[in-house]
C-alpha cells in the first residue's frame, strides 16, 4: 500500500512537470500552429543559465534564477518567435518543425561544448528531505513540485479566463480573422503565448533540474513525453495538457513498476497511438473541424 501511494505521488510530481511543458506546447500550437520540437531543450536550457549566473557572475541562487528567467523569456520567447517562427510559419508547419529540430541540436551542442558533457548538481528550490506521513516517506521536493505546478496552472487559467488580455488570447487562438476584425492585436497576443511558454519552461526547469541534474541530454525524453501528454490530454485545450501530463506520469510509473521494464517506454507510446486513432481530440479536447 505504501508503495502504491509513493508511486502515485512520484507519478503526479513527474506528471506535473510534463503538464507544465505540455501546456506551453499546446498554447503555441493553438495560437500559431507552431510545433516546437525543441520544447525539451527549452526546459534544459534555463537551468544552465542559472548555473552560469552562479559560476560566472558570482550571483547567489535566487538572483541567478531571476536573471535566467529574464534571459529565457527573451531568448526562448521573443527571439524564438521573431527570428525563427515568424519567417518560417508562413510556409507551413513542416519547415518550422525542421528548423526547431535544428534548434534542438544547436542548444544541445552549445551546452555540451561550452559548459560540459557531464551532469551538474543543481540547487533545489526547497532543501531536499523526506517527510513521513502515515508511515509513508515522501520526498518534500516532489510535493513542492506538485504544489508549485498546480499554483502555476491555476494562475494561468485565471489569467486566460479572468482577464481581458487572457480572453483576447483565447479569441486569437479560436479565430484569428474574426479577432482581428474585432480589433484585437492578434500579433501581440501570439507574442504573449510565446512569452508565457518561455516562462513555463523556465519554471519547469527550476523545479526538475535539482532532481534530474543539469545535463545537456535532459531535453530528449522530456520533450517526447510532453508531446504525448499534450496530445493525450487534448491538443486544443490547456486543461487537456494538465490532465494528459498527470495521467501520463502516473500511468508511466505504475506500468514500469508492474509490467516489463525493457518495454517501459512502449506503454506511453501505445497509449498515444490508441488515443490518436480512437479519440484524436484527446481526452478533453474539442473535435477540430476540417475545412473542405
Amino acid at each position, binding site marked *: 500500500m505504501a*508503495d502504491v501511494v*509513493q*508511486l502515485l505521488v*512520484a*507519478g503526479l510530481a*513527474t506528471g506535473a512537470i510534463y503538464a507544465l511543458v505540455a501546456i506551453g506546447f499546446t498554447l503555441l500550437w493553438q495560437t500559431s500552429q507552431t510545433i516546437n520540437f525543441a520544447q525539451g531543450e527549452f526546459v534544459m536550457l534555463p537551468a544552465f543559465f542559472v548555473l552560469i549566473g552562479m*559560476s*560566472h557572475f558570482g550571483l547567489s541562487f535566487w538572483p541567478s534564477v531571476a536573471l535566467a528567467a529574464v534571459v529565457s523569456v527573451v531568448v526562448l520567447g521573443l527571439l524564438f518567435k521573431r527570428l525563427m517562427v515568424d519567417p518560417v510559419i508562413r510556409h507551413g508547419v513542416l519547415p518550422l518543425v525542421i528548423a526547431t529540430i535544428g534548434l534542438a541540436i544547436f542548444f544541445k*551542442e552549445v551546452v*555540451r*561544448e*561550452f*559548459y*560540459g*558533457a*557531464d*551532469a551538474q*548538481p543543481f540547487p533545489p528550490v526547497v532543501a531536499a528531505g*523526506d517527510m513521513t506521513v502515515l508511515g509513508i*516517506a515522501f*520526498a518534500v521536493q516532489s510535493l513542492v513540485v506538485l504544489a508549485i505546478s498546480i499554483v502555476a496552472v491555476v494562475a494561468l487559467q485565471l489569467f486566460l479566463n479572468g482577464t481581458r488580455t487572457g480572453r483576447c488570447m483565447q479569441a486569437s487562438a479560436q479565430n484569428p480573422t474574426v479577432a482581428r476584425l474585432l480589433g484585437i492585436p492578434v500579433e501581440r497576443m501570439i507574442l504573449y503565448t510565446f512569452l508565457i511558454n518561455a516562462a513555463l519552461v523556465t519554471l519547469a526547469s527550476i523545479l*526538475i533540474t535539482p*532532481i*534530474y*541534474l543539469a*545535463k*545537456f*541530454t*535532459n531535453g*530528449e*525524453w522530456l520533450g517526447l513525453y510532453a508531446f504525448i501528454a499534450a496530445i493525450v490530454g487534448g491538443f486544443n485545450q490547456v486543461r487537456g495538457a494538465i490532465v494528459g501530463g498527470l495521467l501520463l506520469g502516473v500511468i*508511466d*510509473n*505504475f*506500468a*514500469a*513498476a508492474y509490467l516489463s*521494464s*525493457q518495454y*517501459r*517506454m512502449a506503454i506511453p507510446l501505445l497509449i498515444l497511438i490508441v488515443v490518436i486513432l480512437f479519440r484524436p481530440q484527446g481526452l478533453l479536447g474539442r473535435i477540430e473541424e476540417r475545412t473542405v
Partner: protein
Amino acid sequence: MGRLRFGLALSALMLLLGHASAEDVKLAYVGEISGSIAVSGGNFRDGIILAVEEINAAGGILKQKIALSQLDTQTNPGVARAQMQKAIDGDPYVVLGPIFSGNVKATMPLLQQAEIPHLIGGEAAELTNLGDRYLFRTSFGQQIGMPKISNYIRDELKAKTIALIWVNNDFGKGGRDNLIKQLAARNIKLVADVSTESGQVDFAADVVKLKAANADAVFVYSNEEECARIMREARKQGLKGPFVGDTTLLSQKTIELAGDAANGVRGHVGLTADAPIPAVAEFSTKFQKRFNYKPDHNGIKGYTAVYAIRYVTEKRLGKFDRKAFAQAMHGLTISPKDEPAILMETTWDDVGEIDRISFLAEVVNGQQKIIQVLPKLGK
C-alpha cells in the same frame, strides 16, 4: 568555471595540433565526443590530450612529435565506420578508441585489414574474443571484473540473493550478462532483474520493484548520473542495502551527485582516479588543472594508452613498426619503474586483455575508501 574560455582555447589548440608535419608521428582518436556517452568519450580524449602534450613537451616519441587527430563517432556505428576509414586514410601509427562496443565492432574489420594496432576503451567482454590480433584494451573487460565482485558478494556479504538494476545499453547489458553467469556459478540467485533506460531520470517505479524482491543485496550497474539518481531514490524509499556495484557506482562523480545517499555502497573498482597510488593522484591533479573537471576512469585509460605506445615504441622497438608493435604488446608487462606514467603495473595477454591490480572499495563520508587491494589474475 572558465569552461567557455577553455572550450575556445582547446579548439584552437586542437586545430593546431591537428596540423601535422611530415616529421610527426600520427595518432588518431576515434571516439564518442558527442552523443549518449559523450562524457566517457570526452574523458578518454582529454586523457589522451594530456599525455600527448606532456610527451611532446619532452621531445615526442623517438624525437618525433605526436600529431593527434580527433574524430567523433557520434556514438553511431555507421558514422564510426566512416570516421575510422578517414582516420586510416591518414595513415596513423596507432588508433585509440572507440569506447562504445558497437563502434568497436563496426570498425574492427577495417583496422584488422589495415593492420593498425588499436587501443580501445570498450569493456564489453566479447571484444577480446573476436580474434583481432591488433586489438588491445585499456581497462578490464567485464568478464574480469564481475568474478571479482561476485567473490566478494559470496564471501564477504554472504548474500544468497541479488536484486539487479542495470542500464539497457551495451555497457549495462554486457555487465548484467556476465554478472548473471558469475552469480549462477556461485549458486547465488537473481531475484530481480530491473532494466532502465540510458538517461532515465525517474526511478521510483524501479526502486519499488527492487523493494518487492527483498534480496540480500542490491547490485547497481549503470552510468554515473543514473547511479546517483538510483541511490537517492533508494534511500528515499527506504530500500535496504547493502548496495554493491562496479566502478561507476563508486566513482567520484556519482558520490558528488548522490551526496549522502552514496555512503555505504561497496564495490569493485578496476580503475579509479581515487586509487591510493601517488602517481594516480598526481595524474588526477594535473588533469583537473588542465581541463577544469575531475577525470573519471576513462581519462586514465586514454592517458596510459598513449604512454604505453611511447614505451613500446622507444624501449621495445626503437622504430615505428605497426606489426611489430602489435606483436610486442602481446604478453607485455609495463611497470611504473619502466614508465612512471603507466600509473599502475599493466600486463596485456595474447588476446589483448588487460591485467592489473584492482580494488574493493567502500564509500565512507563522501569519499571512496579502498578496503582491499585485489591482485592481478596472472602473477
